[in-house]
């Protein structure tokens, strides 16, 4: 640019903005808002506290960061509160939760349900949040009655969260087949996390 042009206020043309194309195509794909879902690590997503019946964008935007954190946190709390074999408890908890989520998803798929694999993994991971709370409380509290109340509330909350999504995916006749394993997994983890609870059930 010559000094005259500068004085006249002319500016350099902006650099050509790069275009994103799908491999093999020449036309630009529809521009997507930058920052895909995998990068939202920030605040807690809204879906954990809104009614799961409010289906929509919140459920469609799946991510596995929070589920990953919940599983690790649950493993850590269970491991911390275990008196022996801490590392084994952690490894088993992690493997069980991860495999459990995958198997529950496969269960729905094999029952002929219409869900998306990663979306379901994400949702089941979010349903572990009540278990995290329960494990934390049971680790710190010693009052038996309080623990029983917390356990029941957690069981109800987790099931309530998973129910609409899971039940809407399968036929009416197969709802119980899809939902029972979810309930069972939640119950088993609670039973494992609270030694006193599992002892009372055992003796009963």
């Amino acid at each position, binding site marked *: 640019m010559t000094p005259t042009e500068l004085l006249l206020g002319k500016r350099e043309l902006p650099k*050509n903005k*790069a*275009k*994103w*194309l*799908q*491999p*093999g195509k020449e036309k*630009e*794909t529809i521009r*997507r808002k930058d920052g*895909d*879902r*995998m*990068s939202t690590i920030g605040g807690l997503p809204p879906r954990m506290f809104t009614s799961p019946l409010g289906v929509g964008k919140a459920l*469609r*935007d*799946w991510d596995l*960061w929070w589920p*990953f954190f919940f599983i*690790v946190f649950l*493993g*850590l709390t269970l*491991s911390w509160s275990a008196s022996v074999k*801490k*590392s*084994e408890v*952690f*490894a088993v908890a*992690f*493997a069980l939760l991860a495999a459990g989520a995958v198997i529950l998803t496969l269960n729905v798929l094999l029952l002929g349900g*219409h869900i*998306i*694999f*990663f*979306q379901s993994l994400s949702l089941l991971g979010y349903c572990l949040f009540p278990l995290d709370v329960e494990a934390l409380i049971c680790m710190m509290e010693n009052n038996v009655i309080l623990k029983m109340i917390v356990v029941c509330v957690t069981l109800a909350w987790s099931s309530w969260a998973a129910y609409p999504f899971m039940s809407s995916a399968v036929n009416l006749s197969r709802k119980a087949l899809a939902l029972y394993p979810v309930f069972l997994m939640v119950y088993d983890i609670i039973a494992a996390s609270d030694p006193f609870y599992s002892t009372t059930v055992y003796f009963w």
Partner: protein
Amino acid sequence: MDLSQPEEENYANPKTCFFHVLFKASALAFYMLSTLFADSFVIIFVITVVLAALDFWVVKNVSGRILVGLRWWNEINEQGESIWRFECLDHESLARINQKDSWLFWWTLYLNAIAWTIFGIFSLVRLEVDYLLVVGVCLSLAIANIIGFTKCRKDAKNKIQAFASRTIASRFSSTLQSAFSLV
């Protein structure tokens, strides 16, 4: 007349390259030297897996776009169908990609996966199921990125074909092609 030697092409995005390598190297190094740092398996697991997850995020969201101009993600549309999107930059922008950046990107991606596979074999041989879990998680994250970015490459199909016909029997190469189109 210009008699000077052409300057050696330097990394165009040194900071991005650094972060691209940093978390991979830390995860591998921490895993290898874990017995020096901590004697609790839980700590080793959590730190290694967190580093591997950070590396996954950095590669997928930052270095993939900047170093090689590729991006991939999944979205679920209004009808509830899952759509995987794989995109690359247009010709002109691709031509401007630094070769050294690109070389570093791909080689560290592959070497990372190979290293974790070797660690996995070691754990398998020693029958350490706990550590196999760590390796499994890190390996799946590495492979996810490799598959994702390979599908973005415009010339991926051609390169796979050339590689297959060069080194493997043609029957095997056609199986590979059909497997890729199914995924």
